[in-house]
């Protein structure tokens, strides 16, 4: 491949973050919950779950789309797209940018998802069963399609550069940061909104995941249900929301004196080629993705202070991910910190990676380690420093954010603090 640039690739940094999550919307609320270890898990409110095996989730309560878009625009969007548009507005504002200050043709969007508008499919199918397919909504297809979160961000914010929407289950939005950085480094865009969006909590989805034994059944103690790396973990907690970050070149950020959260150094992607839902129990694929991210970032393992784990809280993931970290870092694995924001936010699936990148960006900027709450009884197979129960101040130079998806897709992005 012929490089488009002579010399070094431009450095890409995160200058704005927009979380719309079960533990807070906007940097201030999200950052405070992350530091204080506040759980976003509660009994399901969006539908009657009383007959289900799993009756808890991490929902975004009191989300008001009209705060971010017209009522007419909101009507044409599934909830995952509404989350993405809200997160994008928040991220741009946090970066100190507005639409007027952007070159729209040079601004791109990479907003990925896991389930896209699957809930719209379920709702419209139910309507059709009642009133006949002859009365199918004309909005059905352009509402439910998985690319619509990215496209609605483009439409609502008037961004006319490249728009990418790809799916990689729970690795989807780690992938978004790798592709977003590539767009800028290849000169396809100057600025990219990168992230993920997910809103697929439904009776069918919850029940199907429950039957896979993927979900925690700790219905009576919702805030204690998501317990990655704990001996008594029994699955993840389904979550919803979005997170979007502003990516731009370091030069552009410095030129406008922007606050820089972190640099996106590089990413690694690969596949397990093993199973449709279970991770390779030896964590071989996860390890290769982390090693490739380090290689792409030209980062020695000992420069990494923090791994933002995929850390779902399933028995299989947490053991395999721990093995993978040891495989990559050797003895040094015991000296770095690992934690899982999913202990707080639940598992936002297609948006989970973007939440992890957002949390990691904050850790790098604010020099602290987000906690793994509910880690009360260490699992003998999980014997690293998981920042159990409470966040703590720490020097964080560089970090990895992991995302591993059903189907065996692995994605890891390497981030670093930018000094000066």
């Amino acid at each position: 491949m012929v490089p488009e640039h002579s010399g070094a690739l431009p450095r890409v940094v995160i200058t704005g973050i927009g979380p719309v999550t079960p533990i807070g919307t906007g940097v201030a609320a999200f950052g405070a919950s992350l530091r204080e270890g506040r759980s976003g898990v509660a009994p399901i409110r969006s539908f009657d779950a009383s007959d289900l095996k799993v009756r808890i989730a991490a929902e975004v309560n009191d989300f008001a789309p009209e705060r971010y878009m017209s009522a007419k625009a909101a009507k044409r969007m599934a909830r995952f797209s509404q989350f993405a548009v809200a997160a994008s507005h928040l991220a741009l504002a946090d970066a100190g940018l507005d639409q007027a200050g952007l070159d729209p043709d040079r601004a791109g969007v990479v907003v990925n998802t896991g389930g896209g508008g699957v809930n719209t499919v379920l709702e419209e199918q139910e309507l059709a069963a009642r009133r006949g397919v002859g009365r199918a909504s004309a909005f059905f297809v352009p509402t439910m399609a998985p690319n619509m979160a990215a496209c609605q961000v483009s439409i609502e914010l008037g961004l006319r550069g490249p728009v990418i929407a790809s799916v990689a289950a729970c690795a989807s939005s780690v992938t978004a940061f790798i592709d977003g950085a590539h767009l800028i480094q290849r000169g396809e865009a100057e600025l990219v909104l990168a992230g993920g969006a997910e809103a697929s909590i439904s009776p069918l989805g919850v029940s199907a995941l429950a039957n896979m034994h993927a979900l925690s059944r700790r219905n009576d103690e919702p805030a204690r249900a998501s317990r990655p790396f704990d001996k008594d973990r029994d699955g993840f907690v389904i979550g919803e929301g979005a997170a979007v970050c502003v990516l731009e070149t370091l030069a552009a950020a410095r030129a406008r004196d922007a606050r820089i959260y972190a640099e996106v150094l590089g990413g690694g992607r690969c596949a397990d080629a093993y199973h449709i839902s279970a991770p390779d129990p030896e964590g071989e694929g996860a390890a290769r993705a982390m090693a490739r991210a380090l290689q792409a970032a030209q980062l020695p393992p000992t420069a990494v202070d923090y791994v933002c784990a995929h850390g779902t809280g399933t028995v299989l993931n947490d053991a395999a991910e721990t093995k993978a970290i040891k495989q990559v870092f050797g003895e040094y694995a015991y000296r770095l910190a690992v934690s899982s924001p999913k202990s707080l936010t639940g598992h936002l699936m297609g948006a989970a990676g973007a939440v992890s990148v957002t949390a990691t960006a904050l850790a790098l900027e604010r020099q602290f380690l987000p906690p793994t709450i509910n880690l009360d009884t260490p699992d003998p197979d999980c014997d690293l420093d998981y920042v159990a129960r409470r966040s703590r101040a720490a020097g964080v130079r560089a970090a990895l954010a992991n995302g591993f998806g059903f189907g065996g897709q692995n994605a890891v992005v390497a981030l670093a603090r930018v000094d000066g």
Partner: protein
Amino acid sequence: MSGTSDQLIAIVAEQLRISSERVTLESSLIDDLGADSLDVVDLSIAIEEEFSSDEHPIEITEEIAAEMRTVEDILTYLEDQGVV
């Protein structure tokens, strides 16, 4: 204004997510109220759902919908169909 026209105006406003005060019988769906062709389809469905009964189904075919320019056009059609 008749009950039917009030009801119709309420449906138009709800479907287009605008205030019912903006909607008059003379309003053009597309030029005045900002509807696009997708809105018109879903509006037709909503009207069918609202004004149909088991004994008296209302059908707005694509051909009829294409002729409906103003709110009054819809009202006239409904009245022709015996909705009062």
